[in-house]
């Protein structure tokens, strides 16, 4: 059955871009969701709810043509919603272990797709500030079931693969070796953009800057994924990252003042362009509602700021600037923006827009891509992007931890080709 389904789906894939992906097999695909916690505004709530209740998509209330039939929730608190969801959706059952969720209480893999959502919940931080979400551990339990069943299913992993590079690499290698569809990452690469544009494929990119409001690890991965989704489209495709250098405290402010990569910072034009795409510049002057911050404003509003500077193997330079407030200040920018300087000096800049209203609809394009993964067995965009950004996140944090030491990153020599078609939300 497995082989015949795959070959059937290969034929089906051609019709998917029309948005009419309909499971034409004898039954609807069955999906298992494995999550750390399920409460309002948790990632599992946003993602799994869209499978259960549908979501607004291209002028319709779209209902995914598949059923989440099993759910594993590791932490159940007072604000848990999983019980309510299971009561309201009769096809959904909650299981006490990952293996049981995947086998629906039987002995063999009984689902056609797996959602692995290890975000939110009460987990310890390590000494570097990384939250030890058990994504790798969940993944290992999934592939154990795959092995015992002699069958695999496509898997989506929310956000970075792991806080730990070695774990991430092993997850990637295992998926390759077992040859199942593997997709991962943040919603930022696929959400709305303002303007609604992508970098032309094969543009020559010299330097890039991404900005947001900070958050070691959990916040870093989002900016890195957004920036990577832009720069991976440069001429030659992705080649991987050679070095990383973290900057914090006076070293950060000196880098900001330096005004260029060569002088130890980043191109100030790129930082300014990124800030000029923002819809959420924090108030730098009383009674003014939208002013461009001065260098003194930046220092005053975000004293805990830090940056990671990356050199890519092909010579590209890229920095994420995290304008982190302290407890008394408001910060600089409330949204994620990226700018890139192209050969010839032109500057490309874009806002990654996250609708932070009742439904957090930036999860809608992500779920739409996950549906495609489950229907076709293929990821809409290369999982190597998230492998690389997982490694960049961990490397940036490591450099911070090692007193901002510049580190060589030979393990991040990750090459891949991006998709030719853009995959962000445009319709």
């Amino acid at each position, binding site marked *: 059955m497995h082989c015949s389904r795959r070959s059937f789906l290969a034929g089906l894939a051609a019709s998917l871009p029309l948005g009419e992906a309909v499971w034409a097999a004898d039954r609807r695909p069955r999906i298992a969701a494995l999550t750390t916690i399920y409460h309002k505004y948790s990632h599992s*709530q946003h993602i799994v709810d869209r499978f259960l209740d549908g979501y*607004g998509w291209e002028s319709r209330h779209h209902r995914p043509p598949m059923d989440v039939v099993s759910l594993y929730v590791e932490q159940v608190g007072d604000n848990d919603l999983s019980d309510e969801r299971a009561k309201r959706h009769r096809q959904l059952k909650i299981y006490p272990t990952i293996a049981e969720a995947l086998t629906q209480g039987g002995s063999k893999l009984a689902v056609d797709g797996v959602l692995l959502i290890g975000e939110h919940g009460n987990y310890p931080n390590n000494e570097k500030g990384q939250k030890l979400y058990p994504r790798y551990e969940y993944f290992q339990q999934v592939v154990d079931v795959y092995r015992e069943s002699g069958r695999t299913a496509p898997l989506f992993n929310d956000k970075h693969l792991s806080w730990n590079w070695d774990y991430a690499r092993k997850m990637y290698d295992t998926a390759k070796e077992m040859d199942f569809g593997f997709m991962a990452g943040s919603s930022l690469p696929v959400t709305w953009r303002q303007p609604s544009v992508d970098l032309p494929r094969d543009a020559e990119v010299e330097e890039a800057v991404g900005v947001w409001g900070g958050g070691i690890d959990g916040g870093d991965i989002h900016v890195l994924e957004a920036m990577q989704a832009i720069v991976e489209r440069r001429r030659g495709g992705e080649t991987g990252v050679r070095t990383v250098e973290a900057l914090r405290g006076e070293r950060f402010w000196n880098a900001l003042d330096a005004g260029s990569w060569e002088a130890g910072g980043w191109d100030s034009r790129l930082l300014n*362009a990124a800030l000029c*795409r923002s819809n959420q510049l924090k108030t730098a002057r009383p009674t003014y509602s939208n002013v461009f911050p001065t260098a003194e404003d930046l220092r005053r509003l975000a004293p805990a700021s830090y940056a990671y500077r990356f050199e890519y193997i092909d010579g590209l330079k890229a920095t994420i600037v995290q304008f982190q407030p302290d407890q008394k200040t408001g910060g600089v920018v409330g949204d994620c923006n990226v700018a890139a300087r192209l050969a010839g000096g032109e*500057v490309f*800049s874009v806002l990654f827009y996250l609708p932070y*209203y009742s*439904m957090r609809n930036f999860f809608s394009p992500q779920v739409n891509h996950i549906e495609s993964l489950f229907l076709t067995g293929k990821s809409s965009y290369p999982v190597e992007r998230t492998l690389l950004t997982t490694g960049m996140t961990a490397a940036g944090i490591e450099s911070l931890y090692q007193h901002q030491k510049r580190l060589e990153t030979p393990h991040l020599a990750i090459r891949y080709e991006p998709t030719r078609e853009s995959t962000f939300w445009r319709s």
Partner: protein
Amino acid sequence: MLTRRTFIGAVGAGAATWGTVRPALGDVTPHRRIAIITTVWTYLSHAQHMGDRFLVGYPRHGQWHKPPLQVVSLYVDQKPEGDLSAQRAAEHGFSIYPTVAEALRCGGDKLAVDGIVTIGEHGNYPRNEKGQILYPRFEFFQQAVKVFEQDQRVVPIFNDKHLSYSWEKAQKMVADSKRLKFPFLAGSSLPVTWRLPPVEVPYGAELQEALMVGVGSSDAMDYHALEAMQCMVERRKGGETGIKSVQMLEGDAVWKAGNDGRWSTRLLEAALSRSDSLQGDSQLDSRPQDLAHNGKLQKLVKDPAAYLIERTDGLRTTLLMLNGATQDFTFAAKLKGGEILSTQFFLPPTPNVTYSACLVAQIEEMILTGRAPYPVERTQIASAMLDRCLDSKMADHRRIETPELDISYQAPRESRFGG
């Protein structure tokens, strides 16, 4: 798909298609002097949002753009607690004058500015029996026209939001601008703000029906929604032809009209599919919901209103004000052949409200080029349909024939939203 990209491909624009920096119009143009005529200048008022952009610049095409315009004079009708006008005048070196005429003449005896920005929004003004706030936009405009006539010179005028609460006053304002031949731009920021997705009605498309969903109070927010709808439907085949009739419904009559097919549930689903802020269960625990069909809409919206607007060419257009269901402004239209187009008119959050930067860019262009980038008739017809819908409300919600609203015009082909 009818994306902005398709549009831009069609008109063959240059580097702006993918977000690179382009030289701003103002970078090569000498500074022009402008006067701001406003009701009130307090924090988060329209005058503060828009007026400040002329003083400190605004984000545009990935740059902080400093308009080549110099605010030289201000008239402010009310100075309540929180007034910022004196502080702004001192900091930015312009003068506040006690009358509109003196502001336009900068205290001299002749018109002494190159452009006028009138912002008659916010401040303490009475309402009439129809619920309309009696902002003195018409009166500001008439005083400017009087200066033009006395001084034998005209300059471009921008009027924020509707021309007037009265369709007759709005008509006279447009007539005066044509009689004296000065550029006249007006309206809401919704037509020019970002859209999600960035779609446009294909120019010359045959439309079968259109529906707008809005929220907020009358006559402040329903106006925004009506002008947003107008900037979409004016692109249809034949252009705008005017309004044949209007009817405003409230309460259960709104739902009954939907059940009777007087507005389209299918288009409501399409419009709500673009909302990021559904209420009820979505507010409770963030779940998405099919609010057009799940039976909860009528419970959430205690005081629904429908503005049924029939066009002279037969097109049916409806505004549903659905307070309690959503917090967004969304639009849907059915094209001949059945294709449905829908979008959200995106209002970036307070305090930046960068939608007003999109509008200020249009004002700046008009003052610099002497040409309004889109016809003032868009604002005139939206002002008029709102006024007449409120007449219908006062007349027991009866349908009113509106032969006087024979306002026809051609929309510009070029899109002006986002930026």
